């Protein structure tokens, strides 16, 4: 009996020791020492700044480590997952403005207009835009007056956060515009939809249009005045510019045109004090952060501090190959990928002689590298087929190389003044009211005078100013800046047979494609997990 008692005591002692040990460990919350919580981030004005910094950097960078290492978006090579590279591919590669020789998964499908709902690049731009929107929603949720006062953020600090929040709403509207333009009917959520909840509902293109317009109007009074914000931050000017762009395409998005509002808002931007810089060649250089008079909003890159393989790094590096001297481009090595088709070249006057970077063309915007390149494209993967482009160069206006030979300093304008001139002119020509055709002519000639180095030789007259002219002029002024697909769709020339270019539709001489390809398919990856989504027709 005594033995049994002893046994029980021994066992009990052993077990209680164990119980004591385990209760310490079982429910322990371990935290990584290198991370912090949302509550800590949003407890100080500095934290708010670093959070809005991420909202902005979501369209410049691919993740938390530059150039790669901690990606925001999965399912795509990180180097190709930044906003502007993806947007550029979707806007430029299916058009006459660009071809690319890379064999990246899904990339060649843009030329052949054969993309599927599994296309990695389409998936990339879809998730990139929606990712930035998710960050915007979270920032807006964290920035209500109630949250600010509960965290003791007052005075100037609170005013700043309110500006940030309005900018987050602007960036969200901008990304919803991207989605509306590319995918028409994306999923939709705002700060009022909790994270981790049910899959979001789909929104129709027309309803999204109404939302974007109302949202941009709603934040108008909350934004910093046009041209008055810090570099890199959106202001009223950006919000108006986006509205002008959206109204110009209203016919495509909703079936109902709104050229009058396009005139109103482009005029607002033009009147806000912006002006063209004097030399077109300096627009896309390493020190183009100086071009604040012309650029309304830029995505900011830096060779040492904002590194990725997209954005302007992609635009410069992939355009350099063949006999192009890499030092003139401020880089150590080109990727030999992107060129233009002969259609774009033919919009400019014929070459006179060769002189880098303008190629001797009276229109200085014809920044084509022709030496060693064939104008005609026989094989898309051959870099020397098709003229190369030297519009983007990682050197400064004084000729110095950028900070880094592998990553570019060039900031990418997503709104700049000439687009407003062109919107104004097109909207007037298409019958919008409140504008004036002579004013429009003046804007166009202002642009062309700059292009012709101050000479009026390239100026046009009223009879030259047609909608077709505006389309061509948009190509001349804005090529490779991410406009072409949207423009061709607005002019009904993207898929149909009325306008062809080499390799359109996958045929060397060009062919039409079914009209459903004016809208990209929603990615299969999201359709598979969000039962609320319905695929766009045709796919």
């Amino acid at each position: 009996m005594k033995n049994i008692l002893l046994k029980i005591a021994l066992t009990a002692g052993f077990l209680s020791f164990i119980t004591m040990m385990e209760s310490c460990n079982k429910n322990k919350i371990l935290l990584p020492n290198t991370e912090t919580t949302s509550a800590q981030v949003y407890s100080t004005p500095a934290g708010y700044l670093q959070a809005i910094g991420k909202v902005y950097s979501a369209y410049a960078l691919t993740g938390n480590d530059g150039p790669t290492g901690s990606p925001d978006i999965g399912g795509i090579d990180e180097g190709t997952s930044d906003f502007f590279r993806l947007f550029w591919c979707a806007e430029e590669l299916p058009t006459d403005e660009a071809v690319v020789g890379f064999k990246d998964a899904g990339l060649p499908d843009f030329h052949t207009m054969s993309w599927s709902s599994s296309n990695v690049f389409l998936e990339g731009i879809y998730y990139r835009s929606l990712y930035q929107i998710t960050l915007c929603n979270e920032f807006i949720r964290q920035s209500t007056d109630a949250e600010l006062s509960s965290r003791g953020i007052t005075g100037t600090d609170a005013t700043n956060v309110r500006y940030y929040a309005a900018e987050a709403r602007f960036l969200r509207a901008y990304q919803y515009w991207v989605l509306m333009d590319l995918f028409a009917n994306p999923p939709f959520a705002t700060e009022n939809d909790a994270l981790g909840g049910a899959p979001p509902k789909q929104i129709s293109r027309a309803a999204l249009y109404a939302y974007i317009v109302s949202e941009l109007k709603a934040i108008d009074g909350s934004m910093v005045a046009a041209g008055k914000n810090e570099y890199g931050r959106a202001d009223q000017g950006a919000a108006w510019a986006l509205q002008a762009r959206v109204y110009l395409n209203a016919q495509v998005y909703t079936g109902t045109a709104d050229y009058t509002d396009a005139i109103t808002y482009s005029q607002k931007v033009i009147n806000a004090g912006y002006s063209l810089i004097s030399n077109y060649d300096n627009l896309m250089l390493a020190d183009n952060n100086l071009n604040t008079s012309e650029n309304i909003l830029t995505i900011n890159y830096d060779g040492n501090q904002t590194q990725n393989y997209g954005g302007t790094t992609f635009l410069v590096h992939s355009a350099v190959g063949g006999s192009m001297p890499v030092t003139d481009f401020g880089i150590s090595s080109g990727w030999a990928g992107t060129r233009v088709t002969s259609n774009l070249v033919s919009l400019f006057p014929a070459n006179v002689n060769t002189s880098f970077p303008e190629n001797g063309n009276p229109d200085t915007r014809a920044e084509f590298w022709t030496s060693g390149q064939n104008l005609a494209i026989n094989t898309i993967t051959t870099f020397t087929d098709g003229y190369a482009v030297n519009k983007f160069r990682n050197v400064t206006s004084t000729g110095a190389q950028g900070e880094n030979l592998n990553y570019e300093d060039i900031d990418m304008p997503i709104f700049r003044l000439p687009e407003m001139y062109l919107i104004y002119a097109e909207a007037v020509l298409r019958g919008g009211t409140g504008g004036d055709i002579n004013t429009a002519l003046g804007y166009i000639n202002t642009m062309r005078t700059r292009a012709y180095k101050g000479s009026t030789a390239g100026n046009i007259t009223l009879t030259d100013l047609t909608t077709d002219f505006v389309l061509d002029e948009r190509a001349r002024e804005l090529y490779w800046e991410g406009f072409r697909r949207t423009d061709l769709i607005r002019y009904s020339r993207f898929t149909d047979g009325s306008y062809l270019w080499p390799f359109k539709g996958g045929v060397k001489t060009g062919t039409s494609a079914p009209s459903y390809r004016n809208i990209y398919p929603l990615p299969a990856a999201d359709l598979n997990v969000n039962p609320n989504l319905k695929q766009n027709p045709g796919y």
Partner: protein
Amino acid sequence: MRNYYLKRYLLFFSFLLLSCAAFAQTGTISGKILDDKRAELPGSTVKIAGTQQSTAADANGNYKLTGILPGVYTVVAQFVGYIPQQKQITVKAGVAVSLEFLLQPQSESLNEVVVIGYGSTKRKDVTGAISTVTSKDFQQGMVTTPEQLIAGKVAGVSIISNGGAPGAGSTIRIRGGASINGSNDPLIVIDGMPVSNDIIAGSANPLDMINPNDVESFTILKDASAAAIYGNRASNGVIIITTKKGRSGKPQITFSTQLSASNITKEAPVLSAAQFRDYVNANDNTTAGTYKSQLGTANTDWQKEIYQTGITTDDNISVSGSAGIVPYRISAGYTDQTGVVKTSAMRRFTGDVNLSPSFFTDHLKINFNFKGAEVAQRFTDGNVIDYAVSFNPTDPVYSGNSKYGGFFELLDPTTTTGIKSSAILNPVGLLEDENSHSNVYRTISSLALDYKVHFFPDLHVNVNVGFDGSNGMGSKTVPDYAASNLDTYKDANGVLYSGYYNAYKETYDNRLFEGFLSYSKNFKSIKSQIDAVAGYSTQDYKTTNHANPSYFANDVLNPTSIPNFPISINEYLLTSFYGRVNYIYDDKYILTGTLRNDYSTKFAPADRSGFFPSGAFAWRINQEDFLKNNPVISTLKLRLEYGVTGNQDGIGNYDYLSDYSLSNSTARYQIGNVFLNTYRPGAYYPGRTWETTATTNAAIDFGFFNDRVTGSADFYYKKTRNLLALISQPALTNFGNQITGNIGNMTNKGVELNLNGVIIDKKDINWTANFNVTFNQNKITNLTADPNSTSSGLQTGSISGGTGNYIQINSVGYPRNAFYVYQQVYGANGKPVDGLFVDRNSDGIINQNDLYITKSPDPKQYFGFSSDFRYKKWMIGFVTRASLGNYVYNNVASVTGTEDHILNSVGIASNGSSSVLKSGMIGSNGNDVLSDYWLENGSFLRMDNAHLGYNFGKPFKGAGDLRVSANVENVFIITNYTGVDPETSSGIDNNSYPRPRTYVLGLNLSL
């Protein structure tokens, strides 16, 4: 080096001195210990009952007990696998008596003790699918990592070495693995200490710190009934490694040394310089002759330039014996290996101490293990083999001038660096200039106390503490003249910097505490034996990473490389309760039940607790009367098992929380004039849990002719639920579009057969053979939350060629990582038509919707066959493995075997796979790399090892034991695969470090 040997021999002799004993006026007993066929049994032990006096037989089975006081004694002779024999004898002073023992073999190894989780059992009482391999059956030759000891030896266990780099580890898969995106690595337990499969910085492999010479046995718990006691880490099976322990008796010293030379077996098939010239001249249609102009006069075999003969020496010494009441084993090992790729090398020191004393008349047993190792390695740049394949063979290795370290590079005077834009670099230069090396220290130590309760001897109290700590550090240095790191940074004054230096450090700390009670009682009256175990364990895994900035040459700090946090710590805790009951009735019917309860901090507190039960039944049919004295069937056992295990590896430690992390110094964003480090909210998966695998196993163990032929046949079915799989998150609902969550089911079903036979068993001739075969079929049965999903699956298997291309997919209805490719169209000449694929969905266009799923990288069957033959003092043997139905994507050919690669778009003539001569592939279509043309049947038969040994017997005046051996490793491979080596764990062959053929000479000496 010399110094080191001196130290080692000093150690050696000090042990010799220890063993000296005094002589007195006493008698001696001597004689031979033989088996039933009068074959000598070296190493058998003789003990005088009731005393501490004992000795071991020498190589000829002779023993001698000296210094015995006169009297009558009972002498016991013992040998593993034989029935102990007792004899009485009278000893007189000054008289030498002779006493011979003839030991009868035990009926096979039924009483062999098998180590299982938290205890051990006898082979005959095993209920689960457990395989053991002991040192006598290990692979021979130059084995530098322990898992290779059992390659090809066990059914259901696939061990594929990760290439031939010094110290490279292996991919181990038990019954195909159970996960998709979680880990498929088995849990490895070394002397009771579960170790992590995480690879510490600077190490190539988590097991390379273990000296294979110290390993006594492997136990592989293959099915859930055996492994469930390891709970949520056991789904991929458990490998228990037991290291050698001290043996009582006089000190035994063993010394072994090996010397080996390795060479590659085959170069990647590329164009020779002459073929290259012809090809370029024939195909360069550029008006400027861009590519022809790059043809030089040299004839360089670049692969030959990067490879060398690798030399390895391996020396081991161990001493085991008893110092007083403390049996000990002390060993030291030194391995010095140079790889077949120039500059790659490994050097390893290991030291091992085992002490196993008993106190209080064996009531308290203590087992202490200390293992320490230092591994120094030099690594080669991962691009070297690629570059050797692609570098222009008409260019020379050296330029004749001192620029870029004297190495030939493709030049362009217009670039800042002087090197041609987008040029690949001289692979020899890359090898010679870059110095990447590491030093890793590791110790695995454990202390196990086993207390047999004084007043209740059926109960044992066990307490184990263990520590597994590593410290890895290393650095990479590139001089400023090296072509690979020129002008990588420019400061504000426009000064360019070259070269590179970065040092890294990581420590890993894994602590274990456990206590368990074990109870064992034989109730003779009711013919019952009960064994029970109940315990608790807690383990703390912590990794600390020290991040350092990098420097340019001359110690100039790279300001963009300053880390946000100099130290980052990653930790998780595992707290567990477990129990097992084993009930044997009448030595015929065996029932086993186990239960484990695990709490892991990798999951949210509410989701932490997991229960993992198992049950098994075994019936020893041969114990039934109708079989008991059957002349043919000596063993027949039926096993039925079911169990549930988990897997929590391969996921982050904190992912149930959404934490904010700061961007690094090269991912800042400019707002105004300030560059901000920004805060990113992390994607999270709050409800994540371990994946669960339920395994059903049915098996028969058999033995014929007094177990001369033994074997087993296992049939298993594993179903994994809550797969840790990468899944898409609905956009806008999380801070990430993909996350590893719990979605989907997968099954593995298969058959394993294992046969061992002693074909000849005579005094002078002995011939044994082992054959095993595994059939495994893996199938994903669900991968989406929505059962009606039309998802084609998630692509995987990243390849080179284009960016972001994947060659495999995880898709419902198919095996894991099945190939996902376009169907190539062939012309009338039988050659592939460039860029033409079958429009499988007939929609008129070729896009991702035309990809189809075919073939698997995993074999349908794999085999192991080994045999050993002994004739008198000669030994000869081999180990072969075969794999059938495994497919390989030949990424070397798909990327380099095209005109587009050889005359490439960046304007550089590059060498490529000679397959281009046969295929005529242009490669101008972006989808060419995804063609099924590049998919090849990778079935193979490989002889891993062939060995020949000779036993000299006693060379030193009747003492000692000397054996010499010669081995060839990777003797031959028979395959139709056109690349270098079809054996890959991923199914993608992309210029990995080749497995060399190695010739080994070895010498073993014991005293």
